[in-house]
């Protein structure tokens, strides 16, 4: 079980499922019985602009926002948004981007890249795969379950 607060930033562009991915991650941590906070700026996000969502979990979480240079992991769904978000990562932090899917055993469909990247992230976090699957099911309509569970596992076995 996690003893310190883990900070994950999910970033990308409006319409790429950034908020959905952060919902799934926050829900997975929540299902672990951890304290969780998640924060992002909505509003203009559907208009294709930059979106970033902060997810923090651990025994006790205070501020909902991750200060620059303190993210343990950074997921960027849009390749061209890596540079503008890199400053949030701490030294030695893990960057997960569509490039991380290069070694995936199958092709990830464009609309589930967000969930596939959670699959990559899952290999560095201490959350059981069943919990991830439950969180994916709980946050998506049933008709999207199969595709996204597949994408998650493609991401999980990429490297």
């Amino acid at each position, binding site marked *: 079980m996690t003893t310190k607060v883990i900070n994950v930033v999910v970033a990308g562009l409006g319409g790429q499922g950034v908020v959905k991915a952060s919902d799934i991650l926050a829900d997975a941590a*929540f299902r672990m019985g951890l304290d969780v906070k998640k924060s992002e700026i*909505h509003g203009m996000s559907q208009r294709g602009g*930059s979106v970033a969502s902060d997810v923090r979990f651990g025994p006790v979480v205070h*501020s909902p926002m991750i200060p620059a240079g303190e993210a343990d992991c950074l997921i960027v769904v849009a390749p061209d948004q890596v540079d503008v978000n890199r400053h949030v990562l701490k030294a030695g932090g893990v960057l997960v981007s569509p490039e991380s899917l290069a070694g995936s055993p199958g092709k990830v469909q464009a609309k589930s890249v967000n969930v596939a990247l959670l699959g990559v992230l899952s290999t560095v976090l201490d959350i059981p795969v069943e919990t991830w699957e439950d969180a994916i099911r709980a946050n998506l309509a049933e008709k999207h379950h199969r595709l996204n569970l597949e994408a998650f596992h493609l991401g999980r076995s990429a490297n």
Partner: protein
Amino acid sequence: MVAKLSDRMLLSGDEAVALAARNAGVLLGTGYPGTPSTEILEAFAQLGGKAQWAPNEKVALEVGLGASFGGARTLVTMKHVGVNVAADVLFTAAYTGVSGGLVLISADDPGMASSQNEQDNRQYARAAGVIMLEPADSQQAYDFTGAALAISEHFAQPVMLRMTTRVCHSKSIVVQHPLPQTDSSPDFKRDIPSRVMIPAYARPAHRRLRDKLARAAAYAETCAQTILESRSASLGIIASGVSVMHAREVAPEASILQLGFSYPLPMQAIRTFVASVERCVVLEEGDPILVTELRAEGLAVEGKPERFRFGELNADRVRRILERDESAEPVVQPGKPPALCEGCSHRPVFETLKRLDCIVSGDIGCYTLGVLPPFTAMDTCVCMGASIGVGLGLRHVLPPEQAKRVVSVIGDSTFMHSGLTGLAEMVYNPPPTGHLLMILDNGTTAMTGQQEHPGTGRSLLHEPATRVVFEDVARAMGIDYVVTLDPMAQGNALEEAITAALASGKLAVIVARRPCILAAPKIRQYEKIALEKTSRCAASCAAGE
């Protein structure tokens, strides 16, 4: 609200307010959509509460006040600038007082993630004399909403619950504690001196208000929202809202006094706290309100440098304030700005207005993005509805060759919100060169996430309602020149219509109607469901059921 593990839930602050309102027996929720407040009424409706969108915030608060006069617990929601619209109601509602608990949510937007200004609505509590509570996370959003309803009834006063973007939209864990209930149900009780604010009744009402506020201040001293965390005596922090969370993060050793009941202030508790620590820092987002008031009481407290008045606070900025770090903050590379969607029906409108070199008096909504490249086709944008008045003002004074190019552009929801009076001004005081008002009707309140309004003909839950027809309104108000067109239609119809209207020198209204590309599939679905319902009804009527 998917995540639920035993009695823990992972909720946004907005969802937590809705849940509390439902659990505390709120009978009516009303408001106008506005980021970051919009999700409250949607969640309240999903939980089975009676919720409705009003045409604007003033009407919402009036409806809420009437419901409260009638004895119902009532929730009224809006964003910070919406309170400006509702302020006329608010100031005098503080005099009339209320019967059923009335909670007004003010969702402020420090940093302007999606707003035209970052006004600090804690000022309204002071200006109007309204009790204010400020939650710091979703649990407090839940607890304080319940408390606010009870406090409202206890003092027979409206209560403002001030939230901010990071409280409204952050998700954190909520446990559904039982909330104080009311045992009274709606029933009209005549009380003319309290409810009719003629000067003779308003004078004593103002004295009653000040008396109630004095009692509220005494109540605040020991209430559950004034939260003392005693730790180190070397550093004390006084804070409210999400700043409390940043303070705990950055200075875990500091003593913290959270002013969850932030107006009127529990001055004795504050005085005792300040005396108990060697150094006392006031952490507040936005305007230096608390620090100014505490200093006026003669308390030796530190505030923040002026530069932190701008934008949100976060852990790093709080650290800088506490460490008196005056070094420059890191400059964050700007991300990609939002833009009008590919296939958005506003695009050809702004392309055309730019091509025709129009002077565009704009308004609040998705279409404000017409100001950005490649369009750069908006010259003013101030507040909801201002497109019409500002456009008319320009027309009145500019030289004719410029005046003739002025166009007011307003969205459908914004027109319902604040455009009707502007249109009345247009017909009543017409500029010599005439004027053109374009209503960009995309069939939804798009910017805030596709909410309904009176012009869509559907209720908050997307069920059929009486539709206000813009063309009929314009004609009824005295505009003869009314044109309806599809801005995406083939050919030059849009450009020709604008050119002709501008050349006519008359008062003209062009309704450019095409559903928002994001909302269109849902609108078709709502229409289909409504149609099925109607035909089922017809069938059962025919069968004599």
